[in-house]
């Protein structure tokens, strides 16, 4: 009988194909549903093991972009932060859907319509509490606390976005760079006292900050500069107290990514008191760019500007 003999291979083939497709779809399904546990600032989060549609809000934008991530949705970066991104990071940012000018004002309906499978957000805790339920209803949400340790923070982003390999490479490069700076400037690091001044907020007119940026903790902890820990956010002082900076050997001051003094800080540098500081008179000031994204590549750029600045310092007499 021809028909049964023909039928048998067809049936076998059909059964085989069906089996394969079942196994594949089961595997794909399992992969899609596979999760990992992330220990984030908002608790323990069950997130997809290999997320494909990641949205980033607030300062989380920079953290994910720094890992080479391509977010599907972002909130607006400040112009200076956008300009400071690398070309491919700018392209990834511009390809994403813009959800609003800030994380706390993000269009969550638009976010939901994009069907993200993971959300990173970095906002003050009070803002997060107000958005938490709505965000978690859309997708697993990971809060990157404003004040959390930056190394732990990038680990969380890398782990949750399945980019640990990228992170490890960035970390190795950074450690190598820091080690080189420590060796190259061992004498300066050992003998000189440093202070970082800034005026990051326009709202605080004629007030400057001592050791207030997130980069201060980086140079203190990683490079070992003698730079006082004045607590979170440093200490703010009136312009009347510029003279207090005379106690330090080297002054670090803020510049943008192009090396220009920031607009908010410029008025301080124009004052007679600043011009009369011993460190300013002797050229022992270092303009440094402190990126906000708090990532290894970001801090690596900070180290580059520190390296350039320390190299240009006049030798101690």
């Amino acid at each position, binding site marked *: 009988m021809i028909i049964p003999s023909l039928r048998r291979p067809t049936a076998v083939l059909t059964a085989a194909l069906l089996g394969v497709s079942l196994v594949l779809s089961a595997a794909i399904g399992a992969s899609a549903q596979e999760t990992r546990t992330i220990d984030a600032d908002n608790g323990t989060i069950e997130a997809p093991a290999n997320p494909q549609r990641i949205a980033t809000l607030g300062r989380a934008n920079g953290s994910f972009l720094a890992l080479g991530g391509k977010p599907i949705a972002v909130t*607006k970066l*400040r112009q200076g932060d956008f300009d400071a991104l690398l070309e491919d990071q700018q392209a990834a940012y511009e390809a994403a859907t813009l959800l609003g*000018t800030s994380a706390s004002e993000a269009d969550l309906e638009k976010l939901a319509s994009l069907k993200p499978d993971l959300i990173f957000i970095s906002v003050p805790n009070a803002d997060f509490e107000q958005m938490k339920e709505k965000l978690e209803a859309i997708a697993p949400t990971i809060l990157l606390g404003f004040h959390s340790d930056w190394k732990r923070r990038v680990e969380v982003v890398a782990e949750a976005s399945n980019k640990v390999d990228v992170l490890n490479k960035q970390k190795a490069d950074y450690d190598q760079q820091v080690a080189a700076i420590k060796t190259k400037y061992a004498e300066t690091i050992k003998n000189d006292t440093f202070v970082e001044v800034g005026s990051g907020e326009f709202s605080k007119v004629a*007030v400057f900050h001592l050791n207030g940026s997130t980069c201060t903790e980086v140079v203190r902890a990683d490079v070992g500069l003698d730079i006082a820990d004045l607590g979170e956010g440093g200490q703010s002082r009136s*312009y*009347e*107290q510029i003279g207090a900076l005379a106690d330090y050997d080297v002054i670090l001051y803020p510049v943008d990514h192009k090396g220009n003094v920031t607009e908010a800080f410029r008025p301080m540098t124009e004052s007679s008191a600043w011009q009369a500081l011993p460190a300013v008179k002797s050229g022992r000031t270092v303009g440094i760019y402190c990126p906000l994204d708090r990532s290894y590549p970001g801090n690596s750029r900070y180290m580059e500007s520190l390296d350039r600045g320390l190299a240009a310092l006049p030798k101690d007499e």
Partner: protein
Amino acid sequence: MGVTPVTDKEPPAPLIALRRRRFAGLVAALAALTIVTVLSVMVGSQAIAPSVVWDALFNPSDDFDHFAISDFRLPRTIVGLAVGAAFGISGALIQALTRNPLADPGILGVNAGASFAVTVAVGLLGVSDIRGYMWFAFVGALVVTIVVLALGSTRRGQSPVVMVLAGVCVGAVLGGATSALTMTNPDAFDQMRAWGAGSILGRPLEIVWPVLPLLGVALVLALITSRSLNAMALGDELAASQGVRLVRTRILSVAAITLLAGGATAIAGPIGFVGLMVPHVARWIVGPDQRWIFAYSVLLAPSLLLASDVLGRVVMAPSEIPVGIVTAFVGAPVLIALVRRRKASGL
């Protein structure tokens, strides 16, 4: 007990008492201004001995304390004197013009116009220095006040009520537009906060000098209109019957308000309550005569502004609080006290 005879040549006793009170008050206000001015130079977040302050003023050197005086305390004191006097007189003028004891220059849209212009300058035109955007603030205040004046004019002339309504409406529209611009441009928002907080520190004197002649012109205009405003307080018809030119007086008054409040706002940002409180207090002491109210406002408003500034320097030392925030803290309770008074000071 005899009755003192009153001759035709001598003013009545209550009037003499009032005159004495006015002169005594004026001397006290002058003394208060002198004391506060000295305090403004002497006191700050950095403790500096009086002898060092003296040396800084009359025998300056490269000492950091001397720089604190010459770079910061002296300029902010000069700015405070000019800006305070401007806010005080413009407040007195607007209260007289609108016959509203709780009016301040903001009611004519001055602050809204200045804020909108600064937002446009910073957010759309990329102006980032106060030397640049203060002129936008000034022009913004000027344009908006002219618009309000035009909207407030009816066929029968300028109505204070219509003018106030126009001011409130234009202010609301511009306030919304300013918010929309700053919400879509975080960079502009950052810079707006600096100017919007209201401060007299960090304002270089080079931006004050060009505005001073304009403030001087406005002061003259205010003095010219003071007699007419006294008559207008009795009502338009009575004032007109006494020969007061109502339209001219209103236009001159609005011009003076714009120059004073626009110039002061451009330099220091919108500082609230000074223009509201001081003319009110002056009216308690001197009665409804605008000439005296202006004289008192010139002295008391800078006193209040500088005293608030000194307070802002010391309460958060070694940091500072902008004077606009301190006047709001002081002003809000005073405003409540004003509106709860059994007898509001009449106009």
